[in-house]
Each structure stands twice: as structure tokens, then as C-alpha cells.
């Protein structure tokens, strides 16, 4: 493995029936990046993240995450990643603290109390520690979900459509949190989204997935330079997508 790539995907495919949800994906993400994985609904983003987090067995190909093989070293991979699924949920009948304590222990922290308070503080959610999860707003749940994902100081954080269902304030807050996390601890962030605006506001690198195939991958700066400004980038994104749809 080239050590500067914390995610190194090699010809990764997932086939459902005769349909490729992910088709020979090759992708490299350098350590410390905020990578935006952009694509229409059904493009294969969630399937990709499911495979990279070792939840789903690929049909073929492989990948290294944080230096470990997702096929043969699943446990080692999982020790080094944090994950926030789409529409994150936790045990509703337990408090935020109890939920975090449980997941922290499963992530290998044997006495997580202090760390939990520290993370809740960082996320500006300390006041919610004893609230039952079921009573929290979507935005607050999201923050507890993020707390869960970063408790064990993972090397890579996978987020699947993290802004879906959040109000504009929640989105802004989340963006701030992720940028801070990336800056302060150098955490690599891999974020799925179907919204171009999110990518341009915070990602350092972007990849565009369409019908299971990677059709573009470059740094945001290069991409912007190539397409001049955001609106023309969007135009290109849509044009490419439309071209694919017609085929």
C-alpha cells in the first residue's frame, strides 16, 4: 500500500442479480482529505460505503482502508473507522450517554465516561447527555450520532448523506463540526451526498459516481478551475448524468 492513501479502492464491484450497483470502482483518498462522493440517487454511494465499512461483501475487487484489507482484516478496519449511516438511529429508550457508552465500549474504550463528556462538549451537546434518544430532535440525534462515530478517534469517518433531513441551521452546524474535526485532528472524512452545493462548500476532493461507475475524481480546486465556477460545474454534472440516463 502507498501509505499516503488512507483509502485505496481496487476494481471494487457489487452485483445484484445482473445489475452492477458498483462497477469496477478505482478510487484513492489521501489522508486528511475531506472527500465528497457525489452521485444521483441509486448511483451506488451507499453500496460503496457498505463495502468499505466491511458491512457488505463485494462481488469482486478489494480495498484497503487505513492500511487494512476490507476482505481479510475486517476487524482491524472497523477499529480505525467511524461510521454514521443515513438517517442515524440509536436505542430510543436509552439516554444519549448510555448509547454512547455502549458504542464506545464496543469500539474498544473500556472506561469511556470522560471521553464522552469531552466529545459532547466538542459538539455543543453536553446538555443532552441524560435525555432519552427517542425525545431528541433530528438535528440533535445527528450530533449524538457523530459523537458515537468519533468517540474512538477513528482515522477515517464515513458519513452517508449526513445532511438529509436537517434544517439549514443544522446543515451549517454540521459543516462547521466536520471542518473543525478535520482541521484539529486531521481526520479523513468520506462523505456521500447527492447535493453538489455541500461538496463545494467543504470538500477538498470530489468523486462523481454515476450508475456504479466513477466518472470524475479530482481535487475541488482543480475541478473548479476546469469548470470555471460552481454553476457551470453543476451544468457539467447534470449533462453527464443526463447523458448516462439516456444511454
Amino acid at each position, binding site marked *: 500500500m502507498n501509505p499516503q492513501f488512507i483509502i485505496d479502492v481496487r476494481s471494487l464491484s457489487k452485483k445484484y442479480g445482473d445489475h452492477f450497483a458498483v462497477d469496477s470502482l478505482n478510487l484513492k483518498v489521501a489522508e486528511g482529505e475531506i472527500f465528497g462522493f457525489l452521485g444521483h440517487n441509486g448511483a451506488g454511494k451507499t453500496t460503496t460505503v457498505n463495502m468499505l465499512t466491511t458491512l457488505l461483501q463485494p462481488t469482486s475487487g478489494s480495498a484497503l482502508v487505513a492500511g487494512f484489507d476490507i476482505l481479510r482484516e475486517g476487524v482491524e478496519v472497523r477499529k480505525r473507522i467511524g461510521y454514521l449511516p443515513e438517517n442515524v438511529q440509536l436505542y*430510543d429508550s436509552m439516554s444519549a450517554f448510555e448509547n454512547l457508552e455502549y458504542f464506545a465500549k464496543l469500539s474498544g474504550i473500556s472506561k469511556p465516561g470522560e471521553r464522552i463528556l469531552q466529545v459532547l462538549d466538542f459538539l455543543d451537546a453536553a446538555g443532552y447527555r441524560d435525555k432519552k434518544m427517542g425525545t431528541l430532535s433530528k438535528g440533535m440525534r445527528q450530533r449524538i450520532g457523530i459523537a458515537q462515530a468519533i468517540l474512538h478517534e477513528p482515522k477515517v469517518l464515513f458519513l452517508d448523506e449526513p445532511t438529509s433531513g436537517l434544517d439549514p441551521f443544522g446543515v451549517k452546524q454540521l459543516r462547521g463540526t466536520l471542518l473543525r474535526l478535520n482541521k484539529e485532528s486531521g481526520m479523513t472524512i468520506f462523505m456521500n451526498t447527492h447535493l453538489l452545493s455541500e461538496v463545494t462548500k467543504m470538500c477538498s476532493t470530489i468523486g462523481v459516481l454515476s450508475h456504479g461507475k466513477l466518472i470524475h475524481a479530482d481535487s475541488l480546486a482543480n475541478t473548479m478551475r476546469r469548470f470555471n465556477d460552481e454553476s457551470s460545474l453543476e451544468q457539467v454534472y447534470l449533462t453527464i448524468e443526463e447523458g448516462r440516463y439516456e444511454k
Partner: protein
Amino acid sequence: MKNSVTIARHEIQSLFRERTFILLLAVFAAMTLASAYIGWSSQHTIDQVYIAAAEQMRQSGKVAPPSPFADYPHLALLKNMMIYITLIGGLLAISTGYAAGMRERKAGVVKLLFSRPVGKEEFLLGKLLGIAFVLAAVMFLDAAISLVSSAALVSLNVQDIIRLFSFYGFSWVYLLGFALLGFSSALVKDDEVVALLIPIIFWVAITFVLPELASALYPTGSLNPTLPQTDILQSPTLQTIHGAVYPFSISEHYKETAATILNINADAPVHSGILNIVTTFCWMLLCLAGSSIAVRSFDKTRW
């Protein structure tokens, strides 16, 4: 192993917060208490009849024969308990296992849980430990209730106490089967109602249908602790049905063994005691194997 203990503790904590579980537990505990009283009360009535009869004989100058009920086994007053265990105990066990299997699905945390360094084997072991502990706690609570209530009504010796605890230990094995069935079903069946229905159907079959067939339509086959001691199996057809079904009639094997443990079988058991015990253990182990298959085939990205 550490993860399994964490999962088990979480499971136990969650179960004791569930209203359905607490409700069933309360009903079960109340029936345990009632069982000792009902047993004592029927025995007491019989004793009173003897005392009254003996008194009458003495007054008319005759010598009363010793009470034929004097060496009635002490634990006979728990006779109903083995029925309650097959009935409400079975339901409690199914509900415990089902809740354990459904928990992550319902909470929507399956993907999150398996994105942690937790293996499927650790998950299985954790859930098994949790379920086994909860059922053991229920059996222990029951044993304590039975012990205190029986001791208040009759005098128990050390052997009785050992028998009483062995009875609940054996009941734990029997009930574990139902819990594991509920657990597996909750893991593999998409529809939540179907997932609950499957173990219930097994419970009905084991508790009511098989004993009826195995006892060859003996009217109280499912509720009587032991098979009829008289030979009512006259018809060859009934005898054939009995022979074919009996080995699989798990609740009868349980009840016969339980009666032997409590020392309330009047005669030697109709069938081999070894067969009874082996069948009950096989039932539990088969359900355990089912749970292992269910966890292995469990789709981590489905819910």
C-alpha cells in the same frame, strides 16, 4: 469475549426496561405464588377430611387407621408449577428471545453495531448470554418464591430444597429452547408479526397438539403433569399414533422429568427417564444450532 459481555449486559438492561417483559414476569411470579397455595389448599382439604373421619371413628370407639396421605411428597404442592412453566413460562421465554432478536432491527442500529469491531460470533454469544442470564434470573426468582411459600406451608428438608432447585434448573433448559426459537425467528423473518407467530406456533404444537396426539387423545394430556398410569391405550391405531408422536412430544418429556425431579411421580415413569432428559436437552441444543445459523445468515445491511 469482552464485546460479548458488553452486548449481554446491554441486553439484560434493555429487557428489564421493557413493559411486556415485566408484565409477563409479574404474572408468572403471581402464578408461582398461587401454585404453592393451591397445592397446599387441596392437600389441606384432604387432610381435614381424614382428621374429621378419624375423630368420628374414635368417638364411636373404633381405632382410626393411619392417614394414607401422611407421606404425601412435600413438593407435590408445586405440581401445578410445571404446567405454568409450559404455558406462561414458554410465552415469557419466547418474548425474551424475540425481543433480543428484534432489538437492533427495531432500533435501526444494525449497521452501526456491525460497523464496530464486533464479530457475528461475538454478537451471537452476547445475545445468548443475555437471554440465558435473564431466564436464569426468572427461574431463580421463581425458585425463591416457591421455596418461601412452600416452607411456610409444609416443612421442607434439605433434599426437598435440592429437588426444588434442580426442577427450576431443568425448566431453564426447557425454556431456553423457546427463547432461542424466538430469537432466531426475529433475526431471519422480514415481517415482525410472522417472526413472532412462528415461535408461537411451535409453542402451541409442543404444549398442546403433540401431547394430545402422543397421549392418544387422553383428554387432559396437555395439562396433566404425567401420562396416565392406567393403560388406556387399548386401540392399536391410538397406540401407533402414540408411538410415532411421543418421542417428539417435548413438553411431555419435560413434564415427566420434572415430576420425577420433584418426586411426585406415584410410580416409576411410564417411559425411560433417560429418553426424557435426552429429548429435552436435544430440543434446546437444536434451537441453539438454529440460532447460530440465523446469526450467520443475518444480513447486516438490511435494516
